[in-house]
């Protein structure tokens, strides 16, 4: 077995047995890590694969979360049924906001997406359409139920969240090597050249945005179910920064890197909780140091290489 495979097996085994060893508090921390991991993986489609500087992912997460919260508390629709619907709402929202800005380059896109997340947060605080509950948010979201079993404790949620995370990882691994994933990579490296070889860059970028938003919206359902209370404070610009940092610091475009990033960015501050304010000070400094020593992230994406030796033969000798 390759060393990478051994590590994968060990990590998965450790994650499977972790809840038996840990108390409710630490399982809850793992649950947060799991949700952020899913969010960061969904952001990675936009930021890592398509190379779009997107710092407003919390906006899509918020739309999904609030869709679940509103429909569950108003109409009593079971929480987990709302997962695809929350994803679709977030995806539709992404289509609306991304369509006019998709042509913006680099930093301009970064700034616009920050603007969007702030507008969404202010709209939630101002109780837009009278359905978001203002700054108090919405409470009384039902517990999710799976085949008649009510998911209640952190340990229950652990398997729901990490099950979802596992599905996410498997699907996005497939995506990476699909026609769509390769097109995104091409656009990331050079969108002019991609256009030149017949890839509709604007279309693919938009689809990447919608897919990432769809997935963040589904993560929103799980988040709403876990919290049972949602409020605008959970969807500030800093939430977007956390997701963004996980992707870049872990290794943008590399699923393993993003997962490691989620563990470090969400987990480490919890480990050092007893140091109160100073831990965030160190955290900020650590972000700078990490970038200086590993500017492409801890686990950078491996450039895709193709073996073209077979072409040499048909041309009678090659170089």
């Amino acid at each position, binding site marked *: 077995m390759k060393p990478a495979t051994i590590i994968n097996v060990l990590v998965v085994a450790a994650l499977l047995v972790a809840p038996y060893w840990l108390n409710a508090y630490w399982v809850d921390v793992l649950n947060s890590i799991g949700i952020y991991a899913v969010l960061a993986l969904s952001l990675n489609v936009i930021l890592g694969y398509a190379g779009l500087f997107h710092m407003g992912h919390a906006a899509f997460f918020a739309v999904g979360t609030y869709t679940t919260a509103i429909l569950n508390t108003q109409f009593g629709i079971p929480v987990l049924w709302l997962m695809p619907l929350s994803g679709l709402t977030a995806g539709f929202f992404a289509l609306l906001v991304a369509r006019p800005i998709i042509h913006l380059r680099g930093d301009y896109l970064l700034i*616009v997406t920050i*603007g969007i997340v702030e507008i969404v947060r202010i709209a939630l605080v101002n109780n837009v359409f009278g359905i978001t509950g203002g700054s108090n948010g919405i409470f009384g979201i039902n517990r999710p139920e799976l085949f008649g079993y009510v998911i209640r404790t952190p340990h229950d949620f652990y398997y729901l969240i990490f099950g979802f995370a596992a599905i996410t990882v498997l699907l996005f691994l497939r995506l990476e090597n699909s026609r769509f994933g390769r097109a995104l990579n091409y656009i990331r490296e050079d969108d002019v050249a991609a256009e030149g070889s017949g890839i509709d860059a604007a279309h693919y970028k938009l689809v990447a945005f919608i897919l990432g938003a769809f997935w963040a919206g589904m993560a929103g359902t799980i988040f709403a179910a876990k919290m049972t209370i949602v409020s605008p404070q959970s969807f500030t610009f800093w939430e977007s920064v956390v997701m963004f940092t996980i992707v870049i610091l872990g290794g943008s475009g590399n699923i393993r890197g993003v997962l490691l990033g989620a563990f470090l960015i969400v987990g480490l501050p919890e480990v050092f909780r007893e140091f109160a304010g100073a831990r965030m000070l160190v955290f900020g400094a650590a972000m700078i140091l990490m970038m200086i020593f590993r500017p492409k992230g801890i686990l950078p994406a491996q450039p895709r290489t193709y073996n073209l030796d077979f072409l040499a033969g048909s041309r009678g000798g090659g170089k």
Partner: protein
Amino acid sequence: MQLFLEQLTNGLAVGGIYALIALGYTMVYGVLKLINFAHGDLFTIGAFFGLTLLLSLGLTSHIGPVAGIIVLVLMVMGLVALIGALLERVAYRPLRTSPRLSAVVSALGASIFFQNAIMLIYGARFRVYPHDLLPTTTVSLLGVSIPVMRIVLFGASLVMMAGLYYFVQRTKTGTAIRAAAIDQGAAKLMGIDVNRVIMYVFLIGPALGGAAGVMVGMYYGQINFTMGWVYGLKAFTAAILGGIGNIPGAMLGGLLLGVIEAMGATYISLAWKDAISFMVLILILIFRPTGLLGERVADKV
């Protein structure tokens, strides 16, 4: 009409502050193509350092209120400039050849670092500026009573902006900054020490931001360790509004954004004030991505 003029002067006073912060963003972006997310926190540092000096030195009672405040602002500018240059040296210079987004994350890390440093030193609650620094009297203009404070603040930001404009347009260092903003490589070939230019940019921008911090403290009376990022985002909006990388653009954008915001808060909704600024930002970027005055620097993003 009275309300309109009242809000116009308010908007101009706040807009002058936005413009001062925006200059720091636009200069850094012009030369380095980096959004300095920690710039807003340098502004907060200015506000807090100003408060410390006010409370500890008693300058205003020793050498009179006007001279006292001028000396105070100059001291704050000096200190924040040093921190700015240090920030560049530690967090940005090692990343100059790295992927663009790593510098962004470094800037975010610096922002988190500064915010928490301020919180650890000064505490998390709001701190209050002494309210008797500037005369609270008003003057009557066209039938509208305008607080003297507003005029002083607006005048002060105009003076600083004019000083910067003169520096950038007329001095040798200013010319070097403009050259480096157009093409760093070519500037290097012409014998310009680009590292030095970048250091100047990181001295001047934060100095102006620090002054803006003291001005906000005096204008609103309350400061808090998190205030930097809202002002930072607004100022960045202002820089984009005017055309990022363009110094007069940042000035115009700041004043305009201040006025738009004041008008929006009065005539549309106070609760949506911040959202209005961001909508302006999005509309500008959709319809005129180079800003009102156009981007002086070629866009090679």
